[in-house]
């Protein structure tokens, strides 16, 4: 932790010559509910543009529904976050890279054929049917949170009382993790994902999660039990693939991915619906449209805009007439697909009657979100129950006055004051 100043030197040494003319990435938002308008300006020119990252390195930014899907489906591209060409948005210190490597090798950064082996060990834990059987329990958890909101308020912070505890409780129960640990996970996850904080702070937060999860996995090794981590320990052992450190990385991945993303989607979704009262009325009048509303909210928000579509070329590829060379980084911008007016008419309007699943909010291709059907269910139960039980719910502050997570790899909002 004493080498905190190193990344600055790294940034300078990594800067490429002749990048002064290139557009920067990421760009700032103007409206907190919409992607940075600079991306649409670039997309209007061409769908493949070279950009310069905060590290001084360059990468190819890809926009448009067709090109983004093409990138996310290209076997010549890798998701390996430890590859030197991977387009990280911050300089990776050795400590951060060590943390990343552990999560990376569990699933997130694996390419075929290893990805195929490890994803297959997981997918029967993530089926539509398995989550459907959890619906009553998810309903109970959501109702419990809304009971607390009603008892405490108004006004209350919806983010703390509903958005965070629902996915935290669900993922803790699913994985077999004591719920009283959730505060450690919540705080540490947010610190770890915040690009504005110093590398030592982020590394320390990652270390806290890792230590905790390591102890939990050790418990499961000795007494697996009927929860997801326990079942996976048994299954990986039977397959002759068990490795303690890899299971710790996988448990960290599931915990963080299953929690921060859904929480931010609930909070931002409530804001998006508040911003579009006609759509909120449709939802309140006919709760059966909630699954469609969920898909539209996922399209509209694109909360893992850049991180979900980052790749590195492992061979030269062609896209839209541009040759991308082996070793170059690519960011397939998820909002650049989800807000493509050529595919979604009036892309900046939240319109729950669209309702399709052709958005790439969960990515696309073989790395598409493993937990998407759990997320769908949690979002559906959360939105339908919230507006059924508190029909007069409204946001108690101007949306522009709230604090948004502009520097996080998962976009979100810090606090959502609501009243009724």
């Amino acid at each position, binding site marked *: 932790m004493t080498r905190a100043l190193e990344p600055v030197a790294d940034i300078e040494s990594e800067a490429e010559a002749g990048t002064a003319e290139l557009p920067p990435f990421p760009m700032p938002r103007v409206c907190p509910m919409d992607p940075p308008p600079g991306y649409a300006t670039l997309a209007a020119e061409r769908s493949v543009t070279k950009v310069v990252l905060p590290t001084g390195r360059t990468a190819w930014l890809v926009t448009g529904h067709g090109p983004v899907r093409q990138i996310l489906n290209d076997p010549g591209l890798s998701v390996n976050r430890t590859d030197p060409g991977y387009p990280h948005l911050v300089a990776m210190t050795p400590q951060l890279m060590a943390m990343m490597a552990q999560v990376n090798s569990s699933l997130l950064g694996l390419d075929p054929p290893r990805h195929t082996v490890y994803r297959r060990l*997981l*997918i029967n834990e993530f089926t*539509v*049917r398995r989550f459907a059987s959890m619906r009553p329990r998810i309903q109970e958890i959501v109702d419990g949170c809304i009971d607390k909101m009603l008892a405490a308020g108004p006004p209350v912070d919806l983010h703390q009382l509903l958005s965070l505890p629902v996915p935290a409780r669900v993922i803790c129960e699913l994985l077999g993790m004591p719920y009283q640990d959730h505060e450690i996970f919540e705080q540490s996850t947010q610190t770890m994902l915040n690009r504005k904080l110093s590398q030592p702070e982020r590394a320390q937060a990652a270390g806290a999660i890792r230590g905790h999860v390591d102890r939990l996995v050790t418990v499961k090794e000795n007494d697996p039990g009927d929860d997801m981590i326990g079942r996976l320990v048994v299954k990986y052992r039977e397959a002759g693939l068990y490795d303690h450190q890899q299971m710790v990385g996988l448990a960290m991945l599931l915990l963080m991915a299953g929690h921060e993303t859904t929480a931010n989607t609930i909070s931002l979704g409530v804001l998006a619906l508040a911003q579009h009262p006609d759509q909120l009325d449709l939802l309140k009048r006919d709760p059966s449209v909630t699954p469609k509303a969920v898909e539209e909210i996922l399209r509209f928000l694109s909360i893992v805009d850049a991180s979900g579509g980052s790749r590195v070329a492992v061979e030269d590829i062609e896209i839209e007439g541009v040759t991308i060379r082996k070793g170059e980084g690519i960011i397939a911008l998820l909002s650049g697909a989800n807000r493509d007016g050529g595919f979604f008419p009036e892309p900046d309007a939240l319109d729950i009657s669209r309702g399709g*699943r052709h958005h790439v909010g969960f990515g696309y*291709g073989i790395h598409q*979100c493993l937990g998407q059907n759990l997320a769908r269910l949690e979002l559906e139960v959360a939105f339908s129950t919230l507006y059924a039980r508190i029909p007069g719910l409204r946001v108690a502050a101007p949306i522009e006055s709230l604090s948004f997570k502009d520097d996080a790899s998962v976009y979100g909002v810090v606090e959502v004051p609501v009243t009724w």
Partner: protein
Amino acid sequence: MTGDLVSQPTSPSGPASNDAGRPVRLVADRERCIGAGQCVLTEPTVFDQSDADGRVELLIDRPGPELLPEVREAIALCPGHALSLTGT
């Protein structure tokens, strides 16, 4: 959809058929399946996921014309490109 082998269905109740009059067959490549479940969400009367390994299982492999729009939607949504219709 111009490349599809499927054209006008001949019977409203039986399996849809191709130009040569043979019924269309739905094929699931379990080697490509990544278990995302998009097909099950789209048409649960045709697609299922195995409890054992989470991968796709077809409940019907000769879908009638009334199911073809949903089957085509599932094919388009499949992130692993594991689904296809053939004319044989």
